[in-house]
């Protein structure tokens, strides 16, 4: 029986290796799924851009359970895919446990961190979400007439607090007396995909006086943006450029260029430079979105102030506190 299993296993892995002899890249989406209109979809867009520009092929999988994280990594590595790109911080622990078994395969963890000294074949890509959020926070405070702005997060996890903390610092930098109302949608992964609750939270924040609301909540954010547009206040989108969703109602979007990171990693192929990469304002890894949909909303004065702050952050003159370094926030309490 065991002999039989081994033979069949060997035959199967041989067949699989033959299928991917060219070392195509592979992409593993986090539990949120490929089409979340946000983080994972940005990764998918990056992979699609890679495929259409280079004519290359890639393999992807949407995870369904925690135990599949390690499984998908191993199966892709054994089948010869290289590099194996993953999204979401939850992938960093599984990568750390499998990376040593596949020294010739390059792994990429986006939003995660794996110690490069212990695992030389892993690239950790981190984004300075707090810097981008700081800039949109400044814009929100300048656009606000009531002096009260809102933040709607997805699940209450450190990453989202990092967004909220940067945002609140930006708001306070413009108007130290401003009030920032912060709400999290929930405590289960369902919080990433609950537009109805996002809408209710937005209404609650409006009733407390908020007239600009920033959503960092995946699919839930769509409800926030919709309600803000319906109630005639401004909103701020996240991750991808969401300005087009409600032209003239979305002040701007905090861009997190996951797509660029994925595309770059795939283009480098098996020769990928590993280590740790932090993509901030200087690298255009984060930023704020300007297009024809929000031109009329952003005054020249706002633009100058934000560009000025951006230059100062890049130069190190303004230090935006990163919540995840010490789990505390000077501008907002959770």
């Amino acid at each position, binding site marked *: 029986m*065991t002999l039989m299993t081994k033979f069949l296993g060997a035959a199967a892995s041989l067949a699989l290796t033959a299928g991917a002899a060219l070392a195509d890249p592979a992409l593993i989406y986090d539990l949120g799924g490929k089409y979340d209109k946000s983080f994972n979809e940005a990764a998918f867009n990056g992979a699609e851009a890679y495929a259409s520009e280079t004519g290359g092929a890639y393999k992807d999988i949407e995870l369904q359970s925690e135990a599949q994280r390690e499984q998908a990594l191993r199966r892709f590595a054994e089948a010869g895919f290289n590099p194996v790109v993953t999204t979401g911080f939850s992938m960093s622990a599984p990568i750390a446990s499998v990376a040593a078994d596949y020294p010739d395969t390059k792994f990429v963890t986006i939003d995660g961190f794996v110690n490069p000294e212990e695992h030389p074949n892993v690239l950790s890509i981190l984004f300075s979400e707090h810097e981008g959020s700081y800039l949109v926070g400044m814009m929100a405070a300048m656009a606000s007439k009531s002096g009260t702005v809102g933040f709607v997060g997805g699940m209450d996890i450190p990453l989202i607090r990092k967004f909220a903390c940067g945002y609140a610092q930006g708001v306070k930098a413009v108007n130290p007396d401003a009030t920032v109302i912060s709400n999290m949608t929930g*405590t289960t992964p369902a919080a990433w995909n609950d537009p109805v609750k996002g809408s209710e939270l937005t209404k609650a924040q409006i009733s407390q006086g908020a007239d600009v609301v920033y959503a960092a909540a995946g699919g839930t954010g769509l409800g926030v943006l919709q309600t803000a547009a319906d109630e005639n206040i401004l909103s701020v989108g996240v991750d991808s450029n969401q300005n087009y969703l409600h032209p003239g109602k979305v002040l701007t979007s905090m861009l997190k260029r996951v797509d660029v990171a994925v595309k770059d990693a795939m283009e480098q192929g098996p020769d990928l430079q590993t280590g740790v990469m932090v993509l901030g304002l200087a690298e255009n890894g984060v930023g704020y979105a300007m297009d024809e949909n929000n031109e009329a909303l952003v005054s020249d004065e706002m633009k100058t102030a934000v560009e000025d702050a951006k230059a100062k952050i890049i130069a190190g003159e303004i230090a935006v506190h990163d919540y995840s370094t*010490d*789990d505390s926030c000077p501008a907002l309490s959770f």
Partner: protein
Amino acid sequence: MDKMPAWADAVLVPLISILLAAALSAIVILAIGEDPVAAFKLMVDGALMRSSGWGYTLYYTTNFIFTGLCVAVAFHASMFNIGGEGQAMIGGLGVALVCLFIPFPHWSVALLVATLAGAAFGAVWALIPSYLQAKRGSHIVITTIMFNFIAAAVLNYVLVNLLRPTGAMDPATAIFPQATHLPTFQDMFAPEGSRMFRGSPANVTFFIAVLACIGFWFLIWRTKLGYEIRAFGFSESAAKYAGISPVRITIVSMLISGGLAGLMALNTTMGEAERLVLNATEGAGFIGIAVALMGRSHPVGVFLAALLFGFLYQGGAELALWTNIPRELITVIQALVILFTGALDNMVRMPLERLFLAARRRDS
């Protein structure tokens, strides 16, 4: 005699249900332009034809045995425990706390203490709904499902604010100390240097699940308490007349139920992740309902049903890896099996019963 033979009830009905579900799934796969035969082959190959596939199948099976038994105990007392999910989450907290804060000399000691802690935490989480049911008449279905949300919120708070290592992004505890790591199937069965079971998460907890099945059978059919639980389940008023306290049976059977759910955390938290993650249960508590229904609340049935769902989970993962069948459709296939075996049980049973009766009448 208005019943069909026991073998038909236990074997034929689930088998026909599964075949119906498979046929419908095949149509679904055909409709999106994929080959159902190839898909089925891929599932069998990935889940049953390689040792690491078995490692995953049995890992999921272990989860479903615990949650299936959890629901089955409550069924015997005619209660519907939908709270397996929350009880397993809190059980995971118990397992994590002992693993993190007690310096164990050896995994066997750690396993013993973690088993007690997981069961105790799970049982405590079931205690409040069962008390409310027994003393206040608040329906257990409502309270247990509400407690799932409370458990999620508690776990989130504890992980984000208390147990998370400073600076870590992931809402999860630190990795448990080396001494608490349970031996996996690879450690136990793979000869030196072989790749058998490599990387697969099945571990020694599987045998605890099998022991739990045997213990379950003994408890329900061979002890006084089991007799009382079943008597209470058949008729509350008769049980009361016979001197069985409804309050006691309600609470005790729910404590056992919650304890079994809590044990699931041994497998996911201590065996697989070796740390407590936020999403450790991922719906196994709800699958347990389907497992218990399909397994007729009997440990052998629960074991087989858990194996089937383990196969579906691991086979589904293979489909996701190597085909273009989207993840949502894999969930649809899993749901069809639950629908046919759990919810539409009578659709198969009634015609089959009539068939058997007709055959018997002709014989006589």
